[in-house]
């Protein structure tokens, strides 16, 4: 296709022959449909790989993301919900995913779109439809030109960032124009559209922008500063002051973020309790809508889309809602980055785990879950999931499958629990036991953290967690849900570091960690709610003065361990995101913890650390995650120490960006 026209024909024959030879991965539990689909695809001259298990599909994708161009998946599968797979793939690998189902319920289609599906086909699939699916791949790679061609103006507007982002968002937009509008307010659409159009010509083949933790943090900070409602790409771009970043990049990232937040808030709202429980989730979330958001968050978790869910739940703050979208996006981004940390392995030491979470660079592609979302969703899920089978999630998130990690989150359901769970969840990702601990703590606190849990969730997935968590933190920041939330957000900002689990904590913690920057910011916010307090504490504790934190982050290490333990435990149960929740809880934990929660704070700290670590741009994370976590653990207590990771300090501020990186 024209896409490859650029290169010389000789050079890349395969490319020139595109869409011939496009590599498709087909997933469907029904053997008949799978066979028919596979043959149809072969007939279209694609290269086809089929599997009837979502889990093995994920495994294959994680092993080598570059081996496939497109994924087609059934919606109803016994081992994993198709939507969850969709999210994970989108987050971690950023591949276009097409949903397939025998049901044509509008709601399902809607769900597919919101989860980021490029398309939704009905069974029986016709070959004519399959002949055109290559367009999704092209669209992702070259949003500018393609969009134009496809008259995806709206989409374009929304997301200049990364083709992939654009594509997916575009698609979604297309499908959900209205929906998007609601979610993203008008600014995105309006602004984007115009600008996008203009920019299109100039940016032919824009290189993908990688939203590193740092970048995302800035982004979130900018968004929070402007206020989610008023956050226009242009202004955000200005505030961020990053060279080489275009408005489109910001726009599409913003869109994702909002989606994320929205999801979170919806989750949060449902789980107001959860929020409390989650505490870790992210104070911000809680604050946001006061648990409401949390409920959303919960919902989010359910779908595995935690990130968004969590965000949406947070809605309450409004910001949050926004965050969801963006956060969601961010989460994704972050998750990727963050989650990387997911190296669950490390979590064993709670902090260690967290540490690992660190910059998780969410190996977006890596199995780990580079995608924050993974983590996030987990978190969210965790929250809601409290019963979730997070395990599932985890499995997905990280190869690590730290069941622990997420288990935490899932626990959240009570919100409180979540928090605790988050902790657990957290661990998962990277084993961020830390997070979990934090979460657990949170859970204990039952504090309103509930919302937080969401965070945790996100972050929890160790791998994914990181992403999620970070995302949360970021989101939280992003969502800056309004004051309280901000605090939580702050934690969320915590992003990247920790990871996924931390995220939950992060929110609170993040605040702290990231916080130093955030903290100050947050502190102001904190005043609002007790949570804030916690958050501040988290912030404070984390960042600088532990003393500030009431919780006193007493040696975070200890706390972390606690978290770890908690997380671990939790994880075992939930395996899924509970961790995330924990993280969230961790974060929120700070909030409610205020008192005893300190531990949490510390945890948060750890989380933060993790987050930080996690924050690292996804790429880096995966490897560093664990190490960082360790460092973080120690540094958690002292943010300054974090220097080594470098994330802490710098990263702290990152809160807002947990996910950013991955996107």
């Amino acid at each position, binding site marked *: 296709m024209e896409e490859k026209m650029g290169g010389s024909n000789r050079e890349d024959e395969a490319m020139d022959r595109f869409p011939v030879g496009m590599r498709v991965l087909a997933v469907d539990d029904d053997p008949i449909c799978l*066979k028919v689909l596979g*043959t*149809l695809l*072969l007939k279209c001259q694609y290269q086809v790989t089929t599997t009837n298990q979502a889990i093995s599909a994920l495994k294959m994708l994680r092993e080598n993301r570059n081996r496939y161009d497109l994924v087609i998946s059934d919606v109803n599968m016994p081992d994993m919900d198709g939507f969850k797979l969709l999210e994970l793939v989108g987050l971690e690998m950023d591949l276009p995913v097409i949903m397939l189902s025998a049901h044509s319920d509008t709601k399902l289609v809607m769900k597919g779109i919101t989860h980021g599906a490029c398309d939704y086909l009905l*069974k*029986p699939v016709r070959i004519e439809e399959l002949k055109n699916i290559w367009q999704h791949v092209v669209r992702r790679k070259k949003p500018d030109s393609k969009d134009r061609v496809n008259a995806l103006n709206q989409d374009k507007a929304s997301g200049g960032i990364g083709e992939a982002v654009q594509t997916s968002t575009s698609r979604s937009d297309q499908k959900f124009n209205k929906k998007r509008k609601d979610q993203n307010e008008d600014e995105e659409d309006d602004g984007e559209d115009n600008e996008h159009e203009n920019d299109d010509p100039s940016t032919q083949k824009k290189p993908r922008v990688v939203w590193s933790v740092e970048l995302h943090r800035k982004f979130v900070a900018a968004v929070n500063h402007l206020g989610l409602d008023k956050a226009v790409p242009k202004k955000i771009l200005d505030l961020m002051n990053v060279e080489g970043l275009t408005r489109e990049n910001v726009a599409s990232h913003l869109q994702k973020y909002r989606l994320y937040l929205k999801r979170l808030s919806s989750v949060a709202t449902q789980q107001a309790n959860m929020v409390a429980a989650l505490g870790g989730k992210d104070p911000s979330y809680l604050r946001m809508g006061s648990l409401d958001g949390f409920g959303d968050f919960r919902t989010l978790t359910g779908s595995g889309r935690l990130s968004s869910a969590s965000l949406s739940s947070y809605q309450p703050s409004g910001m949050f809602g926004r965050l969801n979208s963006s956060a969601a996006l961010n989460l994704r981004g972050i998750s990727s980055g963050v989650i990387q940390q997911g190296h669950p392995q490390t979590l064993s030491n709670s902090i260690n785990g967290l540490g690992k979470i660190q910059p998780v660079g969410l190996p977006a592609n890596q199995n780990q879950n580079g995608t924050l979302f993974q983590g996030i969703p987990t978190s969210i899920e965790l929250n809601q999931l409290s019963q979730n089978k997070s395990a599932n999630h985890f499995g997905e998130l990280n190869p690590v499958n730290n069941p622990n990690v997420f288990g935490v989150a899932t626990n959240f359901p009570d919100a409180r629990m979540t928090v605790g769970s988050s902790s657990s969840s957290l661990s998962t990702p990277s084993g961020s036991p830390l997070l979990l601990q934090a979460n657990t703590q949170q859970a204990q606190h039952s504090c309103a953290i509930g919302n937080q849990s969401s965070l945790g969730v996100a972050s929890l997935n160790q791998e994914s967690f990181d992403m999620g968590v970070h995302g949360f933190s970021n989101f939280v920041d992003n969502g800056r849900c309004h004051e309280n939330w901000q605090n939580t957000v702050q934690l969320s900002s915590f992003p990247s570091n920790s990871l996924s689990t931390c995220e939950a904590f992060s929110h609170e913690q993040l605040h702290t960690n990231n916080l130093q920057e955030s903290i100050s910011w947050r502190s102001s916010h904190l005043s609002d709610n007790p949570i804030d307090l916690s958050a501040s504490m988290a912030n404070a504790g984390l960042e600088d003065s532990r003393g500030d934190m009431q919780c006193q982050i007493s040696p975070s290490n200890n706390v972390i361990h606690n978290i770890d333990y908690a997380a671990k435990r939790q994880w075992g149960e939930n395996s899924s995101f509970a961790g995330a929740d924990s993280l969230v809880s961790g974060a929120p934990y700070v909030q409610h913890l205020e008192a005893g929660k300190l531990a949490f704070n510390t945890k948060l700290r750890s989380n933060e650390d993790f987050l930080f670590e996690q924050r690292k741009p996804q790429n880096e994370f995966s490897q560093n995650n664990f190490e960082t976590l360790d460092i973080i653990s120690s540094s958690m207590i002292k943010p300054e120490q974090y220097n080594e990771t470098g994330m802490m300090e710098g990263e702290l501020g990152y809160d807002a960006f947990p996910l950013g990186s991955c996107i």
Partner: protein
Amino acid sequence: MDLVQLQRQFVDYRTSLYHEGFLDEQFTQLQELQDENNPDFVVEVVSLFFEDSERLLNELARALEQQSIDYKRIDAHVHQLKGSSSSIGAQRVQKVCIAFRNYCEEQNVEGCLKCLQQVRHEYSLVKTKLESLFQVRLPCRREIFFLSKMVLP
């Protein structure tokens, strides 16, 4: 019986199936997918369908016999049956599945049992028809030999 006659028989028979609603265009697609690289594609898919459907039908029967019926599970099975029958073009089976699903949502046991019976019926009908069809199917090279041995009524 010469080849032309065989072919005609096959086509006629198949057409009747379409008319009667046993098969729809999806089945045509399947046939088009069959080629040298995939010579037995249709037969394979149809056989798979038979196998899988038997299993699903048994599961459904079992699920409906339970004291406390798990409608979610039933819905999942019906959903799968619907998907697979639509994939091969077994239209009537698919239609019954849709009705079945509605009863399931309403948690109407009577309705479900009735639908199960209907599905079973339609399924066996289409199975018989398809089996006949394949016996008369367009002969591939290797089948010409085989068919030539057959004496068609």
